[in-house]
Each structure stands twice: as C-alpha cells, then as structure tokens.
C-alpha cells in the first residue's frame, strides 16, 4: 500500500480508538449554532436569513478546534520526525494529514449541517446548496488549518495563535460558502459562488501542502 493511504488509515484508526474526541467538534458545531436563535430571537424570517452565515461561521470555528492535535501528538512522541526522515514526500504527508482531518471533522459537519438547516427553517434547495458549499469549502479549511498547525507546532499558546493566523486566510471561503446559499435564497444562481469555491479548493490543493511541508521542515 502507498504510504499516503497508510498514513491516512493510521490517523483514522487512531481517531476511532477515541471516538469522543472526534465527536467534540460536531457537538461544538451544533451547540454554537443553536445559541444564535436564543441570542437573535426565534422569528423564522430572521433565522432563515442568517442561517447560511451562522452555519458557515460555526463550521469554520469547529474546524479550528482539533487542529492543535493534528501534528501535535506525532511531534510530541517523535514519530513526525521519523516520517519526515523516511524519504517519502513531505508534501504527500501533509496532504494525507489534511485529508484525515477533513474525514474526521469536515465530513461529520457536512452530515449534521442539514439538521441545522431544518432547525433554522431553511427550505430543501438552500439546504442542498449549503451542503454542497460545505463539501467544497471544508477541505480548504482543513488544508489551511494544517498549515497553521505546522507553523505553530510545539508553541506555548499555539491553539490561540492558529486562530489568529488561519482565520484571516479563510475569509474568502466563508464569503463564497455562505454567499452561495444567500444567493440562492435571494433568487440568484449560486453557480458562480460554487465555481469560485472549487477554484479556491484547487488552488489550495496545489499550494498549501507545499507550504505546509516547508513549515514542517522549519518547525521540526
């Protein structure tokens, strides 16, 4: 088996031994999103209008939650160093890590998002658009999150620092992701937003793993 899949399998298996850790970001996602109706008020009109933004912001924040452990555990026990020394491509290593992160946090968010859509009183079509935008957008969050995690590896206040570094870079994803649903709700075709999201995904797939590999070489 290719080392890429090996690493992926390992990360998923490690996470499956601690299922509660993997569920925490999802719990945060639902909890944070359900705070908004309590704060803003239960008027269905308002809720429908803010739903895409709320779901996207909560997805963004909950994707940041588990980043500190993405490379942290492997760095602490020295296995990350061995992986970098193994002679296999560091770019593929970071790609596998980002994919594992997406499978463990991005995908669950995607599965829970329709439920939140129903809670916020969204119609079927906007919910579909929301899921599609999350499908295209959350991998970008995992990629940039991996970059932030690699740069801040082993630092004292790394967990907060990641937020400060990664969130500004993720703003375009938020804009196009929430914008796609908002566009559909106001009767405009969301195709442009989806194309831009897909373009962002392709660009970050090409660029971010290289930067993350460089960051790992600097940090380790």
């Amino acid at each position, binding site marked *: 088996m290719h080392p890429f899949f090996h690493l992926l399998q390992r990360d998923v298996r490690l996470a499956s031994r601690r299922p509660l850790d993997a569920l925490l970001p999802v719990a945060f996602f639902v909890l944070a999103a359900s705070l908004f109706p309590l704060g803003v008020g239960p008027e269905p009109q308002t809720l429908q209008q803010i739903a895409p933004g709320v779901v996207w912001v909560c997805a963004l924040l909950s994707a940041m939650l588990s980043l500190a452990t993405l490379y942290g555990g492997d760095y602490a026990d020295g296995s990350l160093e061995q992986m970098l020394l193994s002679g296999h491509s560091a770019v593929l290593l970071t790609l596998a890590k980002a994919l594992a992160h997406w499978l463990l946090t991005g995908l669950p968010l995607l599965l829970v998002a329709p439920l939140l859509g129903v809670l916020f009183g969204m119609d079927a079509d906007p919910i579909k658009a929301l899921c599609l935008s999350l499908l295209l957008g959350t991998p970008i969050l995992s990629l940039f999150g991996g970059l932030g995690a690699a740069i*801040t590896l082993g630092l004292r206040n790394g967990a907060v620092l990641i937020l400060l570094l990664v969130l500004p870079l993720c703003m*375009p994803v938020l804009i196009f992701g929430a*914008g796609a649903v908002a566009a559909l709700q106001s009767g405009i075709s969301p195709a442009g937003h989806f194309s831009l999201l897909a373009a962002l995904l392709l660009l970050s797939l090409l660029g971010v793993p290289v930067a993350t590999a460089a960051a790992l070489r600097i940090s380790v």
Partner: protein
Amino acid sequence: MNPLPRFFTFAAPSRFYWLAGLLLPWLYLLAGALAAAGLYIGFFLAPTDATQGDAYRIIFIHVPVAWMSMVLYLAMAGWAALGWAFNARMASMLARAIAPTGAMFTFLALWTGAFWGKPTWGTWWVWDARLTSELILLFLYLGYMALVEAIDDVRRADLAGALLAVVGAVNVPIIYFSVRWWNTLHQGASISMTAAPKMVSTMLTSMLLMTLACWAYAFAVVFARARAIVLEREQSSEWVRALARPLSKVKL
C-alpha cells in the same frame, strides 16, 4: 587597498548598524520637514472642497497612510523571503522591524478613515470592500507579529514568519477580490466610495509631500528598530561589546 563597496556590503549587521545610524538623524529631519510642508499646504493653501467642506482635509493623512500600509506588507514579505531564500540575517531582521510600523500605518488608515467617514457618510464604518480588506490586512500584520514573538528560537521565528508573510502576500489579492464581490452582492448602504474629488494641484502637492514624509518616517523608524534588533541578536559579538565598553567607562 580600499575596495569599492559591493552589493551586499550592508548585509553585514555591523555595517548596516553603522550606516543606519549615520542616516537616522537625516531621515527624521526629512520626515519632519516634508510633513510640515505637506500639512501646511494641505491645511492652509489647499482650497475648501465644495461638497465635503474642510472635512476632506484628512485625505492628506489618510491616503498616504493607506498606501504605506500596503507597500510595507509587500516590503516585509519581500525581505522575509530574501532572508529565507539566501539565509541573509539582516533581511530577516528588517522584515521583523517593518511589521510594527506597517501595522501602525494600517491602524491609522482605518482610524483616519473612520474620522473621514463620520462627517461625509454619517457613519464611522461601512462594510465596504476596501475597509474590510484593510481590516484583514491589520489581522495579517498582527498574526505575523504574534507568530514571531511566540517562537523563542530566532532562526525558526524568522523562517516561520517568512512563510506566513509569503502565504499572506499571495492571499491578499484573493481576499481583496472576494471581499469586493461579496460587497457588490450585498449592496447594502448605497455609499459611494469614489469620494475623491477632482484634485487641485495644491491638494496633489500636499498629498505627495505627505507620502514622501511617510516614507521617510517609515525608513527612520524601521532603521532604528532594526538597529535595536541587531544589537539584541549580536550581543555576544566583539563589535557590539566594543560599542558597550566606552559607555560603561563613562558611567564609572
């Protein structure tokens, strides 16, 4: 016996320290003189605007400061990248010296923008594309400074900062255009950002003078900060110790 200075002569921290020390008083003088001239022309000679009254005069500070905020980010990323690529210590130190000044100019641009917005648009802040992307630029500066401060190992701090600055510089156009399209989609408050009126030549002169003053100020402050960083990092070297010696004798 006295060879011509090479291109990289002042990449040596000791020579940079000497040169920057030589230039500093002149740069401060230049910044003060240019700012005084620019402000005089802007506040006393330039005519009052027909629609905005005297409130527009903040343009003479706001626009140069906003320009500097963007130029300095590119300069910071450029020096950081040079320091990374060529292992040039002085370039990395310059990048770190530029960051606080860039952040200050970004903050000033936002602040003066708010002061300009209140009398002309009736609001301190709008979620306009330019304002929003300037705010994100401030976050990028803060992220860079927080990252390099958080890493104790100097070499790793320089490299990690360089990586972040370069990634940020690549992202700035993406962020700018995404914010712009987001703004046109929402089309909230119908405030025209193209408020800049046709300029009289005195206005243009004042703005140019203020821009040059900002440049001179940025050079002066960055050099002063870089000198401090050089002293801090080279404190164990012979020439820095030699600098400290006569001072301690005077004190005795």
